[in-house]
């Protein structure tokens, strides 16, 4: 590969990786906190992407889509948590998988009914449709903006986790929710906020990736697979792990797709296997 091509694929990988981080951070947080296995997490990515598609079609502006995609996903995450998921926290993981898998299928089939099974394109926000020059190197402005936006969100999230009382409750809760409630904190509320924020971020991931890859009804289940890989590679429950894992998987996928396009997906799982061989609990995992 040429230097320019490598740089191009590396930047693409970082962009995809940041989207994978946004997608996975809620899943890892929720598992760390509640030991809850959410097979409906990819659905929130799907909802974000299709909301972005619909809103941009209706309003002609991708900016409204950027606001409504995450919002729709956050609301759906919150409603499903309150109505259904919270009743399964005490159940075994198999039951949680069944319930959330059913939920994911219902959403996927509804999308097919409302729209159709075909893939659709989503426009890039007009302001970001151009290219930027970095010296002699040319790169799409939108992809660069995605990296920046995700980085800003990662910093804000880190701050919220490490420097606020709510963040401390979340971290403490992943050690023992019982002990957190003994301090007078309503853990049900902590769970709700975790779902709301985690769902909104997965929706944002779907929204941001819609102009890059379009939308289709099966993107949710694909995203779920990727998110689980990122969570396992990064270490279950770890914020930094989700960031590193997302970037690693994004870069591996991007590099592999220029070397061996058919095997890009396989390489993701290869990378996961390698990481787990060296660090069984994941990059940042506590065993």
């Amino acid at each position, binding site marked *: 590969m040429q230097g320019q091509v490598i740089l191009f694929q590396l930047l693409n990988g970082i962009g995809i990786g940041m989207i994978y981080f946004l997608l996975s951070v809620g899943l890892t947080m929720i598992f760390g906190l509640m030991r809850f296995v959410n097979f409906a997490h990819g659905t929130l990515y799907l909802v974000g992407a299709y909301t972005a598609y619909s809103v941009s079609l209706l309003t002609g502006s991708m900016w409204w889509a950027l606001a409504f995609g995450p919002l729709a996903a956050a609301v759906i995450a919150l409603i499903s948590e309150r109505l259904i998921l919270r009743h399964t926290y005490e159940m075994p993981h198999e039951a949680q998988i069944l319930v959330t898998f059913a939920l994911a299928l219902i959403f996927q089939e509804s999308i097919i009914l409302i729209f159709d099974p075909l893939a659709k394109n989503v426009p890039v926000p007009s302001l970001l449709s151009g290219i930027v020059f970095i010296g002699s190197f040319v790169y799409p402005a939108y992809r660069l903006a995605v990296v920046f936006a995700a980085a800003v969100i990662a910093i804000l999230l880190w701050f919220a986790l490490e420097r606020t009382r709510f963040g401390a409750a979340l971290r403490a809760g992943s050690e023992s929710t019982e002990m*957190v409630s003994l301090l007078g904190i309503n853990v049900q509320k902590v769970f709700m906020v975790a779902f709301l924020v985690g769902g909104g971020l997965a929706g944002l991931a779907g929204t941001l990736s819609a102009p890059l890859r379009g939308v289709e009804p099966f993107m949710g289940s694909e995203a779920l697979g990727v998110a689980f890989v990122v969570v396992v590679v990064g270490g279950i429950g770890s914020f930094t792990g989700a960031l590193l894992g997302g970037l690693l998987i994004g870069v591996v996928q991007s590099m592999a797709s220029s070397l061996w396009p058919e095997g890009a997906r396989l390489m993701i799982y290869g990378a996961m296997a390698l990481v787990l061989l060296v660090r069984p609990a994941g990059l940042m995992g506590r065993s």
Partner: protein
Amino acid sequence: MKPLLEIADLQAWYGKSHVLHGVSLTLMPGETVALLGRNGVGKTTTLRSVMGLLSNLKGTLLFDGRSLMGMPTHAIASLGISLVPEHRGIFATLTVEENLKLAWRPSSRWDLASAWNMFPALEERRKTYAGKLSGGEQQMLAIARALMPGPRLLLLDEPTEGLAPVIVERLVATMRELKAAGLPILLVEQSLDVCRAIAERHVIIDEGRIVWSGDTQALEAADRIVREHLTLENA
């Protein structure tokens, strides 16, 4: 005077196994009561029942005249009851200071300064992850954290378990300080010496039932009861 805590005919189950068979115990304002008993007789279960951590309960639980039955744990804690659980339950991945701040409430008369004042050793380690502390320091942190919300009743579950004699002495001094400050304590202990040093009333539990209660003087005289219901090595 009406009791601060009133437990009457409390029965508790873990699944199908019946663990408490009618525990009754009252604690008056300002009082320190010790709950003694052998391993596995239901001491921890009694404290956990008060905190709303058992789903299968029967009987009466009153705090300040108000029933705690069916209340969620966080609401019970917010009424002003703090539990220092068996094995301490400190958050290992949070710093000492974060552990304390998480428990603090605006209405509390306690703050970080009063915690450092009571446990200077903790202030030196305020930025240390709590998991890195020694056993004694962890127990101090657990007690300091329980004080942060400004409780009106402190429940301590075997605070001296597994600690070196000097540390036990230090903790006994702390508990006496809290008692002198007027904080009521329900203390679960296996060491008779610690009970005698802190509590004015003692309650012995065996196989889920209260079998004896009396003041410190009566406990000294109750040789047969102690031999029958407490293990000898702890006597």
